């Protein structure tokens, strides 16, 4: 058994659209952490942002860092980003500007992480407010494509729709990245991971593992 891994996930979202979309992001973070609709949520507890999950038979601990409420501390953003190994970039489908702001966030992440393929998921939240949709799905998918097919999910924090999926997807990406880094010598890992799932991703894995093998 591999020792339990601990992964840091950072939830980022457009500031400046009031609380709208971020509000939801917080909600669903909170909800994810507790996995139930918490009757009484206490954010001051250390563990309130930690969650043990199993992804593809692998136990890991997620530590979720949410910038909720501190968006105005823009200088702080980098500090958060440095912590993260995976990122949830959240916008609200009811606010076009919230989507626009994601690009800057991603640039910053890539800059800080110095990695074009940093694990991230685009999250269009408030999918329950379809009537107020301001971001066509096509636009979001377009963004996703331009970001190297970053996964795009539409969630409803309020209805708890797709919330878990988002975290699992991100977690899977992180694990894969983790494996291709540290587990490069471990063939068994590669095999276990091997064929049958996401071929495209696998290709990328192969390609990227290259230099390490040479080393």
């Amino acid at each position, binding site marked *: 058994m591999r020792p339990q891994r601990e992964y*840091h996930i950072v939830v980022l979202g457009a500031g*400046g*659209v*009031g*609380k709208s979309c*971020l*509000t939801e992001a*917080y*909600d669903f973070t*909170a909800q994810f952490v507790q996995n139930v609709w*918490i*009757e*009484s*949520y*206490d*954010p*001051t*507890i*250390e*563990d*309130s*942002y*930690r969650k043990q999950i199993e992804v593809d038979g692998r136990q890991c601990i997620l*530590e979720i*860092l*949410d*910038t*909720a*409420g*501190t*968006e*105005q*501390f*823009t*200088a*702080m953003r*980098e*500090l*958060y980003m*440095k*912590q993260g*190994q995976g990122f949830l970039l959240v916008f609200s489908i009811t606010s076009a500007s919230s989507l626009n702001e994601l690009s800057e966030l991603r640039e*910053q992440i890539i*800059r*800080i992480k*110095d*990695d*074009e*393929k940093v694990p991230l998921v685009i999250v269009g939240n408030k999918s329950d407010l379809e009537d107020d949709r301001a971001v066509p799905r096509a636009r979001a998918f377009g963004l996703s494509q331009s970001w190297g097919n970053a996964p795009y999910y539409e969630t409803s924090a309020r209805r708890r729709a797709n919330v878990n999926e988002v975290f699992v997807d991100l977690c899977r990406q992180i694990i894969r990245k*983790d494996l291709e*880094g*540290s587990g*490069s010598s471990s063939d068994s890992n590669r095999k276990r991971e091997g064929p049958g799932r996401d071929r495209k991703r696998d290709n990328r894995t192969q*390609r*990227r593992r*290259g*230099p*390490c093998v*040479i*080393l």
Partner: protein
Amino acid sequence: MESMKPNIPPLKIAKSNSNLIELNTISDDSKLVPGRFYSTLSQPEMTPPMTPLGTTAHNMEQEQQEQPEPQEAPRAVFHNYLRAFYPFHPAGNVSPSTVTLPLEQGDIILVHSVHTNGWADGTLLDSGNRGWLPTNYCEAYDQLQMRPLLKALTDFWDIIRGGCGSSLKDFGNQDLMRGPIAGVRFLLEKSECLTRESLLVRKYDGLRRIRKALLSDLSSLVKTAKRFQDVANGTPAEDEVEAILDEMLLKAFKIVTRGVRFLDVWNEEVGLTRTIAELEGANDSHSQYDLPPTPASESFNIVDVPDDRNESRLLNRSRMDQSRASIRTEMLDHNPRPISVSTKRISVSHRISYSGPSSAVRSQNLASERLGTSYDAFLGVLGSFIGLHMQSRSSTELVVTTQQAVESCRALLNVVETVCEHDGQRTMLLEEAREAMCEKLSDLVHAARDVFRPASGQEDDLIFMPDEGKRLVDAATDCVRAAGTCLAKARLVLEQIGDIELDPVETGTQELPGIADSQEPADTPSEEKPQEISLRLPPPPLQIPNSTYSPATPALTDATTPSSFQSHLNSSTNHSALSSLPNSAILPTHLENMSFSSYDSGYRESHPKSDVSETFSRGVTSTGSSFTYNSHLRDSEMSGVSRTSTRATSPDISGSFNQPSLKESVSYSTLAEENEETEAHLLEKTYAHELIYKEGQVMGGSLRALIEKLTAHQSTPDALFVSTFYLTFRLFATPLEFAEALTERFEYIGDTPHAAGPVRLRVYNIFKGWLESHWRHDRDNDALDFVVNFANTRLVVELPTAGKRLADLAEKVSAVHGPVVPRLVSSMGKTNTAIAQYIHPDTPLPVPIIGKKESHLLKQWKTGDAAITILDFDPLELARQLTIKESRIFCSILPEELLDTEWMRKSGSLAVNVRAMSTLSTDLAHLVADSILYLEEPKKRAATIKHWVKIANKCLELNNYDSLMAIICSLNLSMISRLKRTWDIVSQKTKTSLEHLRTIVDVSRNYAELRKRLQNHVPPCLPFVGTYLTDLTFVDHGNQSLRTLPTDEGEMAVINFDKHMKTARIISELQRFQIPYRLTEVPELQTWMQNELVRVRSNGETTAQTFYRRSLVLEPREGSRSGTNLQAQAAAQAAAQPQPESNTSTILENAKDKFDFLSWTYPSKPKSVATHG
């Protein structure tokens, strides 16, 4: 007899839509049952068949029949309280590791958990003993009137047995006492026995006694709680506390037990008759006008149906005989505890009487529904019928209950019949069952007839012959069994043919004669069948419980609570006892309709004596003289009505009617005189039941309940609670609503004289505090007129000085903008700040470290003659000036800025100071970056970094975490941290120091380190505001603003006060640090710093990108045009390609570069190692 006990047929077992049966069915799988229960099983003689497993053995047939029952889909609901339906006396040789709980009928059990096998872990309220008990011996106890009291007990248990530390304090505050008090109050209120003067209390002696006992129990609990308060306030020994807690718990149990008993008695005495009266009222139109008077001949036919069946169906008999005997045994067994037996029945049927109308609202017309309801009604009636006949002394009751029993049988048969008609193939099976039931019914009727026959003609009340009684009970029991079979079969059929829609409700009764007609040829009407005859009258359906239960009252009470009033009724051979009046009103109808019953004569003989009742109910009298069915019915209706109305209006009925009882009650009331005050004290009007507690904390409640808590008189209000109110009430009520709720409290406390004074003073104080220090002109001015009005019209009457003062205050508020008295909100944090370092006011402030050189430089800068940098100043002084600057903003943050994520508002945000904090923090971070990035030489950059690290260290010394955070953040920015050449020059010492600071402001684990440091921090201190903002945001969005509170009508949404408490707690935590530093400001330095910060800010949104570009210029990474440095160029090349390929040397370089950079950025991250490898 005793040996037959194991064969007791479970009356309830056939009631297939009960939760308990579900448990049984589960338990059929014997594998589920822990081994220890087998021992119980192996003792069939000792253990009644109703034990979960035993059921399988003894009631296999019924079980099987019920299994396919389609309605069992919903899962059993967990009930907090059960009431024993049967006595349960486990065998002595049950394994010692298993504690079983012996039960007596009527016992109330607090359930902790229910095992899937049907055994429940419960505490018997009577004794406080805990153990396992079979749930199928019990039924859920959830009487509406008792709910708040039961809930209070559950809370009580949870707190005491939950054993949380805070409970000590809560008991001290007497908060917990409010639950039971409110519960008792609710019970008494709902049963109209709130005051000792209330009619019911005066009229029913039994009620009065139990009420008195209940109140004395309550008072005893309150006393114990007070004693506990005294003990807890001292330094109590643990066992002492435990002992008192135990005592309190037992007392609370006792209250509930007593409450249950009270309700039982009430139900017997008042509830049923009244409910029925109401229902009758509602059905008036139908019964009086819609239903055509049924010709007697038709109804005779019905009765004779069973007679015929009787002859043809002897087969079933032998099987029934056994169970019949055992039921009898059971019934006899119960005699020692008659009250519980009968009350049990009553409570069952009481529920049924409610279920009548409610199910009518639902899809009553579905056959399965109808089947269920009619069967429930049938069981209820038969149950009480059996119970009654064991004790009854009044023929009136017998007549009426028998009549009702038969009627309910018919109602059930009716439904079954309809189902039968709809059934194509399986008719035979169901038909048989139905016929069996008809047969049993006829047995019953015959038995009843025989019982009364010998008594005919006697002037005295009919003497109840034990033998006859037994036969009657046997017949009834058989009837129940047959009905169970019948029901199961009917359901089976229904399942196969699908549910069918029946005609609207009334049809059931109307069909009755029709069906009978079609089935059986008319039999000769017989004079000797008074009951049967009375049966033939088509009563309004809801009359059934009416006449069944009202007669039950005297007999039952008599058996248990002999009183002058009751004994008067019973000893005089007079049927016109108060409580049986409605029956006598109905009964004569039937009797006269047949006009020659032997019983009738007996009754009429006694009738004259009921003259007294004339004053009470004319209906009865007119009944006596009237001879047509219709008028009788109407009259009886009238009597019901008049009875109710007299009760409501003239309080002296019982007095004029019943001298002896009046006397006695008078004497009682003098006795009780001394208790009056206690009583009023205990029964103060309260909304405490609208509060939600958890672990002793108020979690939620309605506005009025929260206001009540806010102005409670028994205890000093919790500071945080009050602060929370002032701070957050605008989130859940408008200021006007708040004011109105306060005045409402002011008014209704008037009902409780002893508390009115202190509470009203509290109300005044709340108003005062609001106006003085918490008035928000932007929000609250709407309520000002209301407050003034209250002060001038109401408050001034009760508390003249206070009224005047409040009016004055209101005037000031309207004149002044801003708080009348400087805001002390932060006192809620600051009161806890007694721990703050005490510094004598005369202690000199630290002297600024500004030498001549620095002063000179600043002057030169001012005139534009010199450029200065941070390097020109002492790190400590810079840290101090930063701290002063930040502290000034921090201390002016108002609590309302932190509510409802106000600071996030895009426009028009009131949170100016919070915004200023984040701006300053961001500016400072940018200033750090700026001061480093605009230096061309790496050496100078390194020196600046070093200086900032020193400043950061000084900030830490000053407990200025906010500035510390900003500086570290900035040094961490990628544009700074990527400056490899610069960092190479930075000394290891500085790096180590920086690393240490970094761990302090580490954001991971939810700022665990920072939080730990701030937890018991002594001010002055400047915490990082961001954590508070995050917490507040999460509390705001992670907690709903309403909670649901289960009530009698379902549930009500109440304010989630816990959310607001949490918010207030976070704000108070922040406010704790709102204490200015004792530092000397250096205005020139402040000016320079301000100037620098503004300069940086002017770069606007693009600052970060500008910095990054600048960083790249300084130490390029990309295929550089300025590439003079080979190494840098190589690194840049490598970095330019996200997926490095075969250029090994470059990769090596790159990896190394990355490693160097990352090794101290992420010293502990596996990732950096991975990159290296």
